[in-house]
């Protein structure tokens, strides 16, 4: 019976999934092009004009200056080398635009999942059938578990094809190995899952989709800003571990061949997955115990 719900939910999200997958795919192609231009043409041109790579690296990524801090905060990671195609390409996984697309997708779907159904009045139709409320939450979880990996894979296919078409896989000494990006999708999945889980908890306790959207966007936007500002100002740095974006770290996985033996990577992944799972547990408990309000 849960599978009947899952099939229906998959049918409902297919168009939005296609659009998001296409956006993520196209962004990877675009970033491959940018990476190619920066690492093989622009930097070489600047060096010919007498601007050294060290000067540029200091100018753009200097940690003791506001601009460097901002760029660093947005690019992510501490070990970005502008002339390394794999480092530049890794930015495509932490770019604010990618985070926004992933965030809006996960948040929107979760907000719509329960509060949206209540809001529209279709939850009554569903719950008039002999199904458990927990089955509705479980069906949403199944959809996340099916949909998120497919988005991640599409994103990686974009990376693979983009770097291949731009010749970045064949650069002498600096070639990109797209397979190194594959395990970083664990982080993408974990981020999507944590956003979805937390929003699902709001959704299960709310009755208006718009209100759930508002609360969730405020929360995740605040987290994003705290994470960025925490990298620029030491006074608020202590707040960063309380944000999910602090724990979203795909770049160390891409950069380190022995990433799986680094405990911190698993810790951050664990925090994201636990946050999502905690959200789902709250959603399950809350939704099973609450009164179902009449449609607005």
């Amino acid at each position, binding site marked *: *019976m849960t599978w*009947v*719900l899952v099939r*229906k939910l998959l049918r*409902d999200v297919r168009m939005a999934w296609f659009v998001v997958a296409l956006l993520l795919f196209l962004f990877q192609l675009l970033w491959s092009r940018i990476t190619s231009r920066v690492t093989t043409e622009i930097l070489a041109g600047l060096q010919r004009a007498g601007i050294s790579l060290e000067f540029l690296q200091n100018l753009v990524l200097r940690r003791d200056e506001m601009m460097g801090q901002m760029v660093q905060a947005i690019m992510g990671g501490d070990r970005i080398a502008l002339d390394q195609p794999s480092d530049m390409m890794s930015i495509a996984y932490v770019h604010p635009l990618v985070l926004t697309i992933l965030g809006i997708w996960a948040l929107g779907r979760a907000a719509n999942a329960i509060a949206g159904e209540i809001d*529209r*009045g*279709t939850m*009554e*139709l*569903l*719950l*008039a*059938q*002999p*199904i*458990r409320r927990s089955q509705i939450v479980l069906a949403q979880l199944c959809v996340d578990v099916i949909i998120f990996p497919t988005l991640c894979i599409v994103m990686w296919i974009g990376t693979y094809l983009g770097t291949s078409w731009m010749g970045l896989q064949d650069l002498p000494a600096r070639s990109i190995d797209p397979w190194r990006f594959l395990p970083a999708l664990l982080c993408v999945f974990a981020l999507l899952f944590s956003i979805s889980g937390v929003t699902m908890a709001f959704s299960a306790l709310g009755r208006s989709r718009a209100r759930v959207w508002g609360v969730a966007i405020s929360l995740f936007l605040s987290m994003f800003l705290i994470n960025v500002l925490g990298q620029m100002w030491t006074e608020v740095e202590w707040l960063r571990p309380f944000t999910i974006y602090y724990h979203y770290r795909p770049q160390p996985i891409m950069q380190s061949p022995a990433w799986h033996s680094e405990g911190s990577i698993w810790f951050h992944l664990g925090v994201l997955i636990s946050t999502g799972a905690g959200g789902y547990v709250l959603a399950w408990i809350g939704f099973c*115990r609450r*009164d*179902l309000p*009449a*449609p607005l």
Partner: protein
Amino acid sequence: MLLRTQQLTKYYGAITALERLDLEVAPGEIVGILGPNGSGKSTAIRLLLGFLRPTSGHAAINGHDCWADSVNARRFVSYLPGELRLYENMTGVQLIEFLSRLRAYTPSSRLHDLQRLFDIDIRRPLAQMSSGMKRKVALMQVLLPETPLVILDEPTNTLDPNMRDHLLTQLGQAGKRGQAVLFSSHVLSEVEQVCDRVAILQQGRLVHSQNMRELREVRRVRVVLTEGVTGLTPPMNVAALTTQGLELHFQHTGPLPDLLRWLAELPVADLKIEPMGLVEIYQRFHQLGD
């Protein structure tokens, strides 16, 4: 009893939505819930479907508690919401199939019969249907599984008079098949037409339960006399006798010959005998137009 509520109560903070409702519905019985907006009709229905947790008291369908064992209770129920909202991205047939699958039920040839009866093309997208057509689709998914209990919240909303008659006929047939029907309505005439029993709610309380067979046996009589009569001795089955000048008003139950024999002794100028309607009962508790 198929449905039994005992002291069923629901408070929203300080607001009393339903208070100590005792209601029983037997298989094959058609019960109407009457009352103005805010009288607790929808709250009662939502409690039965497990949408709301009772503040106190308890409701059970076929022995299954409507909150604690709600899934099993709902196996015996099909429900038509008052505020009808459907999945607009589906066609009518997709909706019926989806809801049937959730019931682990395969729509039978009855689907085509109902489609013909309701005169609707269910292959059309719901988004392109009028509200009346959507209600027909929703009614089809309620009537198809032939569950022991059918609960309908104001089912004739937005239906045209023909469809309304079809629906009431269907409800009558459901009752004859042994299905119990519980429905709320504002329209007294349709309740009168099909119900075996009527429960009238007022501010969350059940204030009156009326057996319709008994009500149908009661006649309202108006007699105009040609001259005043003293010492009227009406037969035993005359009640609520009042006089206004030369007019007598009373209610009569039972066989007519006794009444006619008594009237034959009076100087009758005009006589009107009509069945007692639900209107009089309802008006005892609510002004029509409430």
